[in-house]
């Protein structure tokens, strides 16, 4: 596995009786964005702390770019670490912070200055570079927090819930940044409890609950694995003959079942998009007036619900 930037095997960590991380294994290749999706307290941060060596492991091992994480300080130079909390010196300016963190990773001189400008530009803070961080909005602080982890162009960037407490606009900007980084060949480990973020960003997702990795794969694989159908909800014009409509829908290839509730019919199908197109075509051919159509595909939320019987966010 040449391209593996991060390999974790059998990670385990207990705090007293509480097993916070229980036999967790995963690997991340270069250019891959790997998501750890799980509710509060699932063990995401603890897992990250084990990966970067902040916490001592009770079991398992970690290798970063082929080197054991315990091999010494140098191994950590491959990692860009963005903690869940804002980890900056707030009475210093953004540029001063970035310069400091760059130095801690061995940057210096004109290279350092150029990199500070570049990273500030990347996260859209170039104009506020000389302002103290305590004067920044929460969203700006979040973005600078990420910037500080990228100064040394790490091969593996680890982001722990980087969008928590951020307005939708800043959040979108952060997600765009991460997408760009993944596309540039960086390996990214991204934790979140937002299903939409995992779906949008991650090439592969590990779903965590109560310290265990309960499922892993691409979005398609995960959704396919639970065998749940797509749902098409069709609203009809007033006075439409619903029993005729039910007959038409049942005749469409791929439909697994139809239920009617008021002026609405819900169709279950394995491939919702194809069935939807055929259903609308056949209904209009039969002269039955369709007022509204909605396709509900199962998402990672449904996967989590299916696996644990609970919603991701309570």
């Amino acid at each position, binding site marked *: 596995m040449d391209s593996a930037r991060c390999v974790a095997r059998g990670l385990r960590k207990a705090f007293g009786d509480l097993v916070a991380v229980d036999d967790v294994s995963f690997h991340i290749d270069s250019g891959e964005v790997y998501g750890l999706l799980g509710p509060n307290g699932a063990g995401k941060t603890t897992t990250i702390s084990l990966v970067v060596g*902040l916490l001592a492991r009770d079991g398992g091992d970690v290798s970063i770019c082929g080197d054991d994480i315990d091999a010494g*300080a140098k191994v950590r130079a491959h990692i860009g*670490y963005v903690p869940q909390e804002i980890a900056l010196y707030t009475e*210093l300016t953004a540029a001063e912070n970035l310069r400091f963190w760059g*130095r801690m990773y061995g940057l210096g001189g004109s290279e350092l200055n150029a990199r500070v400008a570049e990273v500030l530009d990347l996260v859209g803070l170039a104009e506020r570079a000389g302002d103290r961080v305590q004067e920044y909005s929460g969203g700006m602080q979040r973005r600078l927090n990420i910037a500080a982890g990228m100064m040394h162009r790490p091969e593996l960037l680890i982001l722990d819930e980087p969008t928590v407490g951020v307005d939708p606009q800043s959040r979108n900007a952060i997600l765009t940044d991460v997408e760009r980084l993944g596309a540039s060949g960086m390996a990214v480990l991204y934790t979140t409890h937002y299903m939409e973020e995992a779906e949008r960003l991650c090439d592969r997702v590990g779903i965590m609950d109560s310290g265990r990795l309960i499922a892993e794969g691409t979005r398609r694989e995960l959704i396919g694995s639970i065998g749940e159908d797509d749902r098409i909800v069709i609203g009809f014009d007033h006075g439409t003959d619903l029993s005729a409509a039910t007959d038409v829908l049942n005749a469409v290839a791929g439909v697994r079942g139809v239920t009617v509730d008021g002026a609405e019919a819900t169709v279950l199908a394995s491939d919702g998009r194809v069935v939807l197109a055929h259903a609308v075509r056949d209904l209009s051919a039969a002269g039955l007036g369709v007022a509204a159509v909605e396709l509900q595909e199962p998402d990672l939320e449904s996967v989590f619900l299916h696996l644990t019987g609970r919603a991701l966010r309570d």
Partner: protein
Amino acid sequence: MRAFLAVCANDLRQRMRDRTILLLGLLGPFVVASVVGLAFGSGAKINAAIVVADLDHSEQSQQLAAVFRQEGGLGEIVDLKEVDTEDAARDEVSAHSAGAAVVVPAGFGAAVASRQNTPVTLTVLVDPASTIEASVAEGVVRRYLGGIATVRLAYATAASTGATAAELESLPPPDPRDPLELETESVFQLSAVDYFAPAMGLMFLYFTVLFGAATFVREERTHTLSRLAVSPSRSVDIIGGKLAALFVIGLIEMAVLIAATSIVFDVPWGGLLPLAALVVTTVLSAIGLTALVSAVSRTEEQARSIGSAVILSLALFGGQFFMTAGAPQVFLDIQAATPTGAALIGFTDLMIAGGSATFATVWWPLLYTGLFGLATAAIGAALFERRMHR
């Protein structure tokens, strides 16, 4: 090394943005030393104001008065005023313009010269609040009278063994000067400002440096400590860099204090090289304690209160609050065992030694504060390191 310097510079930058630190650290000791200076007579050496009322005008009475004026002896600290009557002397003491008065009655010289058992009378008037003047005046008078008694005893002994009148005449008259010079000198060498400039300086140095312990705990609260721990830098560079920043601040603070008090109050700090060495080891002792306090504090609040408790106890036993000359030996031993006390002893010893001060003058304070600093810094840093990689 790059990480060490980066951490040190980063901490210095943050500290320099904190005005209160600058005020506390640089102005604090100066203000306190000034107040003490004002209270004890602004900056000048202690002046023992003593009055002599010479009603005798004899050779002997002039000799006695001359003891108080002697150059290189009591003359250095005694401010002598001569008056003509006992009432005038009494008025000076009542008005607090003199702390003590010696009244030499008429007939004093003749009585001294007689070498017979003619009573020799001297009156010392004292202001009970002026202990220094009182003890100086009484001391001089007692010595003088003791000298007369010795001469009379020698005379009587010689007479009883059958010496001739000529032989008796050749016995020396009492000379009050010889035995008096040195004893008073060592006790009253340092003025209050001389003493309290290093005493207060040390306390404020410890305050500024020990409050720096909060910056360690703070890195934990602001999560920058995790980020530092994940960086490829060694913990020793990170902790060392932070301590080095405090070290620089401590050095600056001491340098400002020494420069300012020697210019404004003429505090005689002593030889430059041993002084510089003592400043370095003293700041080191504060750094070591800071590392320890950082390691045992969980919150910044805790760091500051533990730090204050440590500083105030050290100051109490280290002699920061009062001059310890004349304190019981047990106390002096405890003082020497505290880093602030040992440092203070070192600084005052350098002042007393003046131009002849060498490293040997302060070898013990140097060794003690230096080793104390290194040992506590090592223990504190090792304990704190465990919080970075748990």
